[in-house]
């Protein structure tokens, strides 16, 4: 008897395996190699001498790394909170209202930054802060970076929150209203708890985007406002040691942990 199978099972197409393996290799082999060499005991990035945690020790003991990590965390955490709150309000404002004329425009305005080349945003932001500093004499220091990050993180936080709101069964909110919940109580007791997984995804995305941003940060950052990506960039212009690999690996781990935590909490809430 003929084996029945889905008419277009991509896995059965000739060459699928090869293409898949090649893609995976190109994606992950460099990262894997980077991580492996972070445990190199020698001082040359491309020459393996033995296993050691030496470079992690050096990295952690390094004051410049400390201050870069501190800046990154301050900026990323503040930007995450500000952008997620803003994005949540925007998403609610745009899915829980009667359709109005400007709705489509508002949607585009919120999402447009995703399409603008980052270098353009970066230069625009730089010019803006320069103008503010020049004309008004206001310089917020690291505040400039926080503002810039908060703003460009909004569309990233917005997407999963909006998706969740659109998927939500509207009769749940009606049921709450039917059971004497005022609009505020219906939001607080029904909409918001059900929105948590979306908010967590939005937060995770905003955090990662801010955490590893290079282009905008590079242009906007003033002296003493080095973040981790900038710090790594400055390091590779000198003779490279596996310390860079160790720092990169730490960065990668932070990213993975943030995503994993938000994923796990979101799954538990379901």
């Amino acid at each position: 008897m003929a084996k029945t199978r889905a008419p277009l099972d991509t896995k059965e197409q000739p060459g699928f395996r090869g293409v898949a393996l090649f893609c995976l290799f190109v994606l992950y082999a460099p990262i894997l190699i980077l991580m492996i060499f972070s445990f190199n005991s020698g001082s040359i990035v491309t020459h393996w001498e033995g296993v050691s945690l030496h470079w992690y020790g050096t990295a952690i003991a390094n004051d410049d790394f400390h201050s870069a990590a501190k800046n990154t965390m301050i900026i990323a955490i503040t930007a995450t909170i500000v952008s997620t709150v803003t994005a949540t309000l925007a998403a609610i404002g745009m899915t829980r209202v009667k359709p109005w004329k400007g709705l489509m425009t508002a949607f585009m305005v919120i999402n447009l930054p995703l399409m603008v080349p980052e270098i353009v945003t970066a230069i625009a932001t730089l010019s803006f802060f320069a103008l503010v500093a020049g004309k008004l004499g206001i310089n917020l220091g690291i505040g400039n970076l926080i503002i810039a990050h908060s703003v460009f993180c909004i569309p990233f936080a917005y997407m999963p929150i909006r998706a969740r709101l659109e998927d939500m069964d509207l009769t749940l909110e009606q049921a709450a209203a039917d059971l004497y919940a005022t609009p505020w109580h219906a939001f607080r007791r029904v909409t918001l708890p059900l929105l948590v997984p979306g908010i967590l995804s939005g937060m995770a995305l905003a955090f990662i985007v801010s955490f590893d941003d290079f282009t905008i940060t590079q242009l906007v950052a003033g002296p003493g406002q080095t973040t981790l990506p900038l710090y790594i960039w400055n390091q590779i212009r000198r003779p490279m040691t596996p310390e860079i690999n160790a720092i990169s690996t730490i960065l990668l781990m932070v990213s993975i942990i943030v995503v994993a935590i938000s994923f796990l909490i979101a799954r538990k809430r379901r």
Partner: protein
Amino acid sequence: MRDEPDTSAIAIRQVSKVFGTGEDRVTALAEVEIDIRANEFFTLLGPSGCGKTTLLRLIAGFDYPTTGEIRLYGEDIARLPPYKRPINTVFQNYALFPHMTVGQNIGFGLEMLGRPKAETAARVDTMLKLVRMEELKNRKTSQISGGQQQRVALARALAPQPKVLLLDEPLSALDYKLRKEMQLELKRLQHETGITFIFVTHDQEEALTMSDRIAVMSKGHVLQIGSAHEIYDKPSERFVANFIGETNFLEGEVLAVDGASASVRLGAGATVSAGVPDGFAPKGRATVVIRPEHAEVVAPSGAEAFAGTVSNVVYFGTDTHYYVTLDGGEEFMVRRQNSRGAQVFDTGARVGVRVDDGAARVLRD
């Protein structure tokens, strides 16, 4: 027909609802006028798209009428938001809060009303007992069956002791056996709580078995309101007669009207005395309906209303359907219970059709 304003739990006065504008304009409800009495099991019956859900949503407050009033014990509530109306809803998809337990769902309404915790807790337990769900109090709503979710939805809507309970096709998602069970359960709950139920269905059998009174709707209009008996035995419109049960339509000429009855000469030859809808004076051509079980197939004697030839016989176990081609050319169906000793006719047999006294009705249209 209007009741005295004070005796109606809900009085719907000239309510219209129009969706959209221009070409997309849909009149979902057209000058609907209904009085629903306190403690009544009232059913809105009609085919898909006739406006049942729209009317229920207006009563619940999820939408507002384009024109007209909705009075709850005399007070116009048509513009109040849902959370200010002492009316609760059982949703078709139940709409249980997935992040709360069964108990929390049932207590939600009382909590929102700001009732003391102890009172809420006690009431939740009473409701759980009422719907026989005591053991499932601490389950998540995703961990219970469809029938159980249905009971929780009922308990949740009944817990705040609303003045009126709205149910939008609450049984349509259940399988046949469970549906029969829940029909009895709903009747019991309505009886025990004494709350006015407004029940929506497109299932005529469900409507007939459960309701104190029924409003038959079509295309945004209420065509007839009455008890199951009135609706079934005395349909006043063609749509009602057709939608509920099976019936025979016969064309004829009105000869005379005498109060509630008219004498009509049918195309088939016979002249019958037929009941007339309230406040209606038929004249000229008219349609008369006769239910298939209100007629009898007998050996022809000349004294029957009609004579004809059996064109088909369909056996259904408990009863038999005779299709008779009357001598005037119309098809007439007779339903007869299969009891021992009943005379059997075969296809092609010459028969007479006797009609019960008072079975014929003149339609309004």
